[in-house]
């Protein structure tokens, strides 16, 4: 069986930028934090970090979500967050699949951008705005609520695009655009498991407020998939680990570990069943509530094997391009920083070729913390070697 890479080991290979790459050891693996920062709420944290005395000011900012977080954090967090804040941008930029796809979409479809007004939602370093400007956009409004907005301004200037790109610091929900309508909304809003701490609602808000009737949202389509994998070795490492720790039994800790979806890369050879489409979203049409859903699935085994986990991943496409462009974060595609999301099953299923795991996956925002995702997995297998019917709950936080 193919093996997942240990992310730390990956980092070891990137010695030239050891800080950031290794920083992932410290913070990147905490995906929710990072996603959040890239997207909406980093300003408070960053400012507090750069100047700890300013934390009051930061808390005063009317960003309720991060208000709570900011309030909760110790200054040690400010430090880590700030450092990893840049780190996540570095990681995302280095995610070639992600950044190159956007670059290709923009550079190879200049007809879309020529003389158009573009809104970049959650601009971060401003890289997408720079691509658009270079592709001939009439004007680009790059909206970023975090401290990165200041950096983006400097970057835009340093690269000579000040006349085309306007960086606006603030939340989409509160900001005033100097124009009434925009022709294109571009954003990289996707989170782990597509929906974890994502910026989708912000994009939809911007769409409803500013996009012209025949306007374009980039990307405009995304789908979530589910498949099942053999994963004995890694489940041993992450879950069964507790059964035997240097010869001692710590299995009482194991149950908690099972509730946590694991963001990690899965080797395609581990896939035992078909990949089932769970949900497709059309970003140009959908309503915000559509991101919570329950979807049935049927996973048919393509060989005799054990099943240790179900794996979720998503793809993203830009259907308005000359030719359909997009990328997948699935195990059969080149690895992205989103990796895949692994849901370990309590029991190991023994499945024979042709037998099916059927069930449903329910995805919902956590009521207490909307950025968290609650997942309820119901599944049953009625096979020759194994009969099981079960419900498992997972929480991404």
């Amino acid at each position, binding site marked *: 069986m193919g093996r997942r890479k240990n992310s730390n080991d990956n980092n070891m290979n990137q010695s030239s930028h050891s800080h950031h790459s290794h920083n992932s050891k410290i913070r990147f693996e905490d995906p929710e934090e990072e996603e959040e920062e890239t997207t909406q709420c980093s300003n408070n944290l960053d400012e507090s970090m750069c100047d700890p005395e300013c934390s009051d000011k930061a808390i005063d900012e009317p960003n309720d979500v991060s208000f709570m*977080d900011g309030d909760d954090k110790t200054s040690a967090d400010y430090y880590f967050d700030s450092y990893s804040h840049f780190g996540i941008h570095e990681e995302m930029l280095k995610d070639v699949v992600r950044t190159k796809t956007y670059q290709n979409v923009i550079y190879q479809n200049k007809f879309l951008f020529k003389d158009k007004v573009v809104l970049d939602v959650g601009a971060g370093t401003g890289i997408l705005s720079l691509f658009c400007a270079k592709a001939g956009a009439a004007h680009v409004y790059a909206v970023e609520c975090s401290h990165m907005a200041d950096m983006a301004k400097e970057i835009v200037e340093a690269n000579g695009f000040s006349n085309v790109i306007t960086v606006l610091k603030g939340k989409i929900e509160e900001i005033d655009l100097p124009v009434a309508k925009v022709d294109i909304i571009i954003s990289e809003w996707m989170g782990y498991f597509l929906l974890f701490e994502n910026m989708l609602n912000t994009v939809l808000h911007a769409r409803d407020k500013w996009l012209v009737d025949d306007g374009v949202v980039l990307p405009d389509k995304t789908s979530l998939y589910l498949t099942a994998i053999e994963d004995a070795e890694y489940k041993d490492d992450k879950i069964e680990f507790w059964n035997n720790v240097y010869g001692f039994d710590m*299995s009482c*800790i194991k*149950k*908690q570990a099972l509730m946590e979806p694991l963001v990690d890369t899965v080797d395609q050879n581990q896939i035992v069943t078909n990949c089932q489409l769970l949900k497709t979203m059309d970003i140009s049409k959908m309503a915000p509530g559509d991101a919570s859903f329950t979807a049935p699935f049927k996973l048919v085994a393509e060989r005799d094997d054990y099943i240790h986990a179900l794996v979720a991943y998503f793809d993203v496409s830009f259907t308005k391009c000359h030719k359909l462009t997009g990328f997948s974060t699935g195990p059969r595609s080149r690895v992205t920083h989103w990796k895949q999301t692994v849901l370990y099953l309590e029991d190991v299923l023994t499945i024979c070729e042709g037998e099916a795991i059927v069930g449903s996956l329910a995805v919902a925002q956590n009521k207490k913390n909307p950025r968290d995702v609650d997942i309820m997995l119901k599944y049953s297998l009625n096979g020759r070697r194994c009969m099981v019917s079960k419900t498992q709950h997972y*929480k991404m936080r």
Partner: protein
Amino acid sequence: MATISNHPQSEEEPKNHEFDDEEEEEENEDEELEGWDDWEAEDEAAEGDEEEGSDSSLLCLFCDSRYGSCDTLFDHCISSHHFDFRGVRTKLGLDFYGGFKLINYVRSQVAERRCWICGVTCESSQGLQNHKHETFSIEDIKPLWDDDRYLKPFMEDDSLLYTFGEDEEGEGEDDYNASIDKDELMRDLKKYEEICIDDENTGDMIVYNADNSDKNGRKGVASASNGHLDVAGSSKKASKDKHLRGSFPTLLSKDIKNVNENYFGAYSSYGIHREMISDKLRTDAYRQAILKNPSLLNNAVVMDVGCGTGILSLFAAQAGASRVIAVEASEKMAAVATQIAMDNGLWQSKSQNEGNKHSTGVIEVVQGMVEELDKSSKIQPHSVDVLLSEWMGYCLLYESMLSSVLFARDQWLKPGGAILPDTATIFVAGFGKGGTSFPFWENVYGFNMSCIGKELVGDAAKIPIVDIVDNHDIVTNSTVLQTFDLATMNHDDVDFTASAELEPYSGGSTGMSNDMECQTRSCYGVVLWFETGFTSRFCKEMPVVLSTSPYTPKTHWSQTILTFLEPIAMASGKPSGDRLAAIGTEACPATKIQLRVSIARAVEHRSIDISLETAGIGSDGRKCKWPVQIFNLH
């Protein structure tokens, strides 16, 4: 079998769940459900008899009476049902969890119309109420409920479970003191209930916090919080704690008061512990020191300060210690450590007169801050042979438990007793551009983003960065900054000022392109790391060193990076080209860098301030000083 815990699962290969197994489990579950339904029915029937209205939320263990306070309820139990809950607790010295289990046990028995003492099943609930015992030994029946399955609330929303312990606040001298956040516990327990519904094969300990651990374990975030279990509490765990608090906004108001509690609450995240235990270098060093020095550990009384999962205590027990006192401030982790010690047959039951299976163990878990243990007189002063702790933080001292260890040493270690590890040394070396953020940001998909690199390096001149440094990026020699002898040092020695001198590294580094031309390299800052020694002073058979150096395999401590205000050009021994140029510039590289480093505990909880004075020495002996830099991590 959702409620059965204590399955040692190590031998279970859950590979192949055959149908038969499943069925068996289903049956058991059904059985429980039946009991449950009965109970519900009786419960409803009783509704009309309520005397005290909505305040009477506490349901009697035996009949349908409800009461507004534990005391009245327990009084009623004594007079009507001959069950003296408080008496039993006192007699057996039951801690909070013990009482918790007892209540659930009794409820579960009564629901099935079984006598909680003798197990006889009665025809009706009335019959059970009339069924009485004159004399019995409460000690004899304790094992009946001393099972973790009874940590699962038998009755939904059983208010009794989180009120019965309330009056004892402050007098908890037992292994678990009574100042448990009952609300939180109940939330956890409820969560556990939810989680358990469909769960058939593990009924684990429920007293650790689901939310918290979820968070931490999922992606090994733990490394961020460097985590060893810290008795006296450290905010590196607190950095995770935000999630706990984020999930429970009601706790926010208590934050300030409960700083310590929250810190410790955060330790309950098992992810940290997996990270630490998986830090093989760390765990192996301790394991070797403990197992390979039999003359030290055999028959010794050992104290493990900040035991976490208890792994070091387990090693000590394995090494033949006669008694292991595992001290842990986090309630939840203390409970987990207890469970683990039990599961491994190494737990020393508190009731010594009891002949159950646990009594052979040597480990006792004591929950509390080490500084506050002296209140419990169970441990004699100066009675410990070996003091064991994994107390080190980032940069050795950042949020370390060192002062707690020293406190424990002075309080409990025998004169001449061993302390493991017994030495700790901080090293320093200079690093080059590759150790900074600059290179990446200079060209990003054809765009120049170096302002971010500058910003990062600017910040790094104020705030230490904890990260792995590639040893190829080290451009100077490495030298000792400070050494601590844990056996002899004073508490005040934790704060220190030390000097060091760095010279350009003469080894075969290949990193810098301008090496060939002028052998000038820029030093962008210094990296600090530490080693701890289990020296031959105590570890006579096998001394061990645990190093967190960039030259040895990485540990979860990484290294600590202090960045200079500006890079200092260095060249070895070359006469300076330009006598007018400033030292440390390309035109006049420094031949040495002199450092003066102070590390002092900051006012805030467990954090440290680091001050760094830097001076470059030119080949002509001229000296250039840079402004002192203060790095703080609060």
